[in-house]
């Protein structure tokens, strides 16, 4: 499938896999009719939609091609609006291999190159035959390092000197998902179905075929989370943090320590009773590439899907070494404005790091290295003005972490804004002096 210039096409089944949920939805729309009488010529609309989508998918496959050109990965796509994308391999931050459910069935895999730089985009090669992905990943990483090692040496280097920090036990992961928000929804749906089936078996069939898309969506969410975080192993290698996870497919990712924009610890209500928490890191780059769902774009990379607070503390020491130990509480009058949040709100700082805590039912703690601060904002709303309160936002280049010194005394917020501005400036200067940053 490659021509003289080295241009190649993705796997012919890509549109089907790319369609993902749409493919399932079409199947769900058409199947009941087909099963009932076999006469699907009556449902013109569904047939037309399916036909158009198939044609579009085929066209998109036909016009999409890629090649590796010395130091760049080039991707050309688009039928009417032709797009030629060029990704310089020197800016690659991580190479991920992703295999969603449908891709596993068709034995294809997606290769994602997370790019640094101003655009912060993601290069996606979706989808490639499974057997071609691993060699391509090694080759791309080799090119990204600019070295011309032979592949054996690279493979040896990749596995050497790795210090495993933690692996999540499967039992604990299952338990944590069962009591998480998504898990509870899924359990409610299943319980509802069972009750319906017991009380009125005929109605249950209707509910299943009618709400199939919803049921599938919820189950997909649960499954995706389980699959993504199954046996997630965090290791520290010479080149940074290494994440490996997945049930059927392995997702491998390397995060350079200096690339972490912010760290977030989430403690949902029920988890807190068990002393569990979840640790997530935020990297630079807005994932704007189309085809990525909102959920994926917003989600952060969990380095610890579930674990004790002690374990989280140990990992935090590795990721943000100089983090504040103590946080200050807000004034009591905040109770008037945010009664639920009052118990959670706090913030603290050291010379190089700022930490903020907030949340209503779940507690969310964010750590931002001051060297990564993009801008600072002091915001005061009408209620806050009455109560002489103000908030300071700490903006980072990441996607999901929103660090915010919520509801502080107005004078304290002003002081914090001045201090953080100065400290961030100093941290920036310091990192500019050290070329490795």
């Amino acid at each position, binding site marked *: 499938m490659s021509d003289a210039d080295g241009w190649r096409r993705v796997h012919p089944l890509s549109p089907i896999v790319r369609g993902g949920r749409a493919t399932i939805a079409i199947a769900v729309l058409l199947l009941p009719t087909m099963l009932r009488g076999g006469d699907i010529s009556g449902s013109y609309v569904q047939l037309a939609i399916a036909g158009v989508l198939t044609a579009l998918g085929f066209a998109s496959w036909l016009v999409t091609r890629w090649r590796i050109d010395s130091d760049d990965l080039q991707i050309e796509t688009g039928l009417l609006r032709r797009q030629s994308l060029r990704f310089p391999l020197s800016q690659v931050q991580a190479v991920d291999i992703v295999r969603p459910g449908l891709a596993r069935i068709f034995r294809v895999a997606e290769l994602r190159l997370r790019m640094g730089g101003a655009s912060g985009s993601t290069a996606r090669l979706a989808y490639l035959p499974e057997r071609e992905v691993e060699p391509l990943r090694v080759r791309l990483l080799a090119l990204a390092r600019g070295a011309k090692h032979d592949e054996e040496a690279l493979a040896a280097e990749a596995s050497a000197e790795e210090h495993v920090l933690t692996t999540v036990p499967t039992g604990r992961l299952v338990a944590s998902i069962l009591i998480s928000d998504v898990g509870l929804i899924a359990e409610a749906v299943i319980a509802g179905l069972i009750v319906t089936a017991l009380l009125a078996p005929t109605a249950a069939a209707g509910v299943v075929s009618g709400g199939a898309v919803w049921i599938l969506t919820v189950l997909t969410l649960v499954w995706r989370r389980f699959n993504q975080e199954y046996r997630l192993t965090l290791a520290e290698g010479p080149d940074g943090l290494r994440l490996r996870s997945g049930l059927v497919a392995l997702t491998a990712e390397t995060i350079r320590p200096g690339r972490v924009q912010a760290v977030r610890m989430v403690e949902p209500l029920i988890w807190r009773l068990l002393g569990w928490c979840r640790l997530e890191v935020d990297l630079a780059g807005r994932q704007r590439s189309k085809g990525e769902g909102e959920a994926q774009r917003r989600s952060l990379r969990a380095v610890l899907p579930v674990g004790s607070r002690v374990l989280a503390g140990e990992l935090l020491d590795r990721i943000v070494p100089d983090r504040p130990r103590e946080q200050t509480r807000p004034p009591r009058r905040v109770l008037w404005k945010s009664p639920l949040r009052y118990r959670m709100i706090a913030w603290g700082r050291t010379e190089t790091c700022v930490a903020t805590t907030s949340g209503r039912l779940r507690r969310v703690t964010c750590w931002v290295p001051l060297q990564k601060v*993009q*801008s600072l904002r002091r*915001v005061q709303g009408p209620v806050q003005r009455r109560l002489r309160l103000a908030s300071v936002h700490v903006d980072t280049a990441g996607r999901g972490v929103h660090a915010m010194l919520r509801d502080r005394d107005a004078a304290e917020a*002003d002081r914090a804004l001045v201090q953080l501005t100065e400290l961030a400036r100093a941290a920036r200067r310091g990192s500019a002096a050290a070329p490795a940053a």
Partner: protein
Amino acid sequence: MCIAGLDPGPLAYSRSVAVEESSTEGNRWRRPSHRLLVLRRLQAAAATVAVFVAAVVLAVYAGAAPGLVCAGLAVVFGLAAERFVRRRFSAWGYAEREDDLLVQRGVLFSRLSVVPYGRMQFIDVTAGPLERSFRIATVRMHTAAAASDARIPGLDREEAARLRDRLAELGEAQAAGL
């Protein structure tokens, strides 16, 4: 609420007195052009007149009482809009400091943004048809963070161009990596 080096600027000295430029605590606070205020007032007036005309039409077809009530409401709405527009205009302000740009805005929600020059990725200057006819433009700074929205509307064209060039120059000199 005054702090050395980072005073709240326009809010501190006035909500209504129009000062194009002032100097407090070493920060030179600048304001958008007065033509922005004129433009915003015209927009508010246009909306008010539209409501008023609708009220008059209502008075003709549905009787005097509801029409008069609507017309009265339109006048009240217009006065409120005028007051709001004026306050919002006077809340805008920006100051170029040594290492960062301060942008102040907002009446109900007052915001003070600190955007370091080294973090600016690119700068937009935009002017819609209305803004163009008033010879003003909006300057918007983009950092790698989506949340940091630093924009200054209603700048004189020359001032917008000057600011853009100055920010680009400073940004290049102080650029820091992610």
